[in-house]
């Protein structure tokens, strides 16, 4: 049964558990077929990318807009290389290579999301199972979720200064609501029949929460974490608007101040690509951590 399925109390109609057979695994001609198809979609993507770059290049060559505003793909590549190497005794941009800027931001995202998970999962569990807590805290979580990070950045700067802590706080505040909300929703929809089975085996309330509801909710919790990482990603540039160097957001911010549009674009692309890679990695983690998803 799927985990999102509402608890079903009665025992009919008979749902036959899926019998596994060798033919259910893709193999042989159909396997190579689907691989070929996947390859074709990949090729389509590559073509689309090339077309985009070509149009971009043509627009720049035609000088539709001044070059300072719209640099060519070559300019962006150049800015990327400059920011990624040591040249004329200057290390990258503002003394840090682009990859180092990115690394610092990723670390902030990791730490911020980490705290958000540490607080958000227990918070979501409590919200999910204790009604009075839900009544009080659920609107608070929703309130927090709707706030744009830039709105509370000023407050965080007043409270925590301009060093590392306001940035981490901002990311925690941004990443916490999705984790807590996903956890709360997930523990609420844990199939009642699994809880009942555990209860019939002698599980007390704490065991039911930690050994049944929590693992049963794990797929949705992991999805919540993945969303939280995405939110932290989109918030990191906001977090780094003040004293953000090193940091990819700080780098973009500084480049903007000096009208280095090519570097701004290079930075944006770096964020985007690393975001896609991270999301793919998290999906991999999800699959590995909850291999039962969609199988029962």
């Amino acid at each position: 049964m799927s985990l999102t399925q509402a608890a079903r109390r009665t025992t009919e109609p008979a749902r036959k558990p899926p019998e596994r057979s060798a033919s259910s695994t893709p193999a042989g001609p159909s396997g190579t077929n689907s691989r070929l198809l996947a390859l074709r979609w990949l090729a389509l993507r590559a073509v689309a990318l090339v077309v985009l770059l070509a149009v971009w290049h043509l627009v720049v060559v035609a000088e539709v807009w001044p070059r300072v505003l719209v640099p060519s793909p070559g300019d962006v590549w150049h800015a990327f290389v400059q920011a990624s190497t040591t040249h004329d005794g200057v290390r990258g941009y503002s003394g840090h290579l682009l990859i180092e800027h990115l690394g610092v931001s990723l670390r902030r995202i990791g730490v911020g999301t980490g705290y958000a998970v540490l607080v958000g999962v227990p918070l979501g569990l409590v919200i999910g199972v204790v009604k009075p807590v839900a009544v009080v805290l659920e609107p608070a979580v929703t309130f927090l979720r709707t706030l744009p990070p830039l709105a509370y950045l000023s407050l965080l700067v007043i409270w925590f200064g301009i060093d590392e802590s306001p940035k981490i706080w901002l990311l925690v505040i941004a990443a916490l609501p999705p984790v807590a909300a996903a956890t709360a929703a997930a523990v609420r929809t844990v199939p009642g029949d699994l809880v009942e089975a555990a209860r019939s085996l002698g599980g007390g309330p704490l065991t039911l929460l930690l050994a049944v509801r929590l693992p049963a909710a794990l797929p949705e919790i992991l999805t919540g974490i993945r969303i939280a990482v995405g939110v932290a990603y989109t918030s990191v540039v906001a977090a780094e608007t003040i004293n953000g160097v090193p940091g990819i957001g700080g780098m973009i911010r500084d480049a903007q101040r000096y009208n280095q549009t090519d570097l701004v674009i290079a930075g944006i692309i770096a964020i985007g690509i690393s975001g896609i890679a991270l999301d793919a990695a998290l999906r991999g983690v999800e699959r590995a951590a909850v291999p039962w998803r969609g199988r029962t």
Partner: protein
Amino acid sequence: MPRSDTATEDRRQPVIALDAVTVRYGTKRAPVTAVRDVQLTVAEGEFVVLVGPSGCGKTTLLRTVAGFERVAAGTVDVRERVGVVFQQPRLFPWRTVGGNIAFALARRGVPRPERAARVAELLERVGLPGTAGRRVWELSGGQQQRVAIARALATEPRVLLMDEPFAALDALTRERLQEEVRALAAASGTTVLFVTHSAEEAVLLGSRVLVMAAEPGRIVAELPVDLPREPPLAGHGLRGTPEFAALRQRLTETMRGVPEEVSEGVEAAPVP
């Protein structure tokens, strides 16, 4: 018909005693009486089968004995530790086969180092040796139900409640599991309360069969099953005997006759 041994069973200690039990679902304003005024006594070591058409309150009654339902009236007295096997295996997919059984052992306070050996032993008992490390979704429906039985047995219940545990299985697997459950219960002296809608299964397994009728759910007839169960006729060997056929026939007729006789206006329940 054969001499009933109800008299001897009555002398044994009752492990389940329901007195005038009524269970209702729904709201106060629109209540649905699932079970009304049920009297049920099960003595130690009995294999009692509840049989009846779907919707007649069998599951409700079993869940009441398990303590999952609150009664609207009457008293429920269950003396011994119960284990429950549901129609669906209800295994925890995040745990391995062995992990599911170890969960039950942990609840019984079996120390961690002893669990692996106990898991292996229980899996052996349900005919699944060496599967402790398997993921539950790799097993067939019948194998999953065996694991569910092993998990229920892990708590060492003195009473086993089973709610149509084999209804979702294919005929061959069902026959094998029926035989095994009967043998397991006989060997360990475990009391069993077994729910089914099949007259065949009821006669095959039960030492006493209680027939239920719907609207409201209640017990309308009792049929002692006194069949020879010595080795040559144990399990499915029984099926070929005229005694078995006669008893099954009688039960089917009772089940068929019940709805019209007892509560007029109720449409005849389908009998499988």
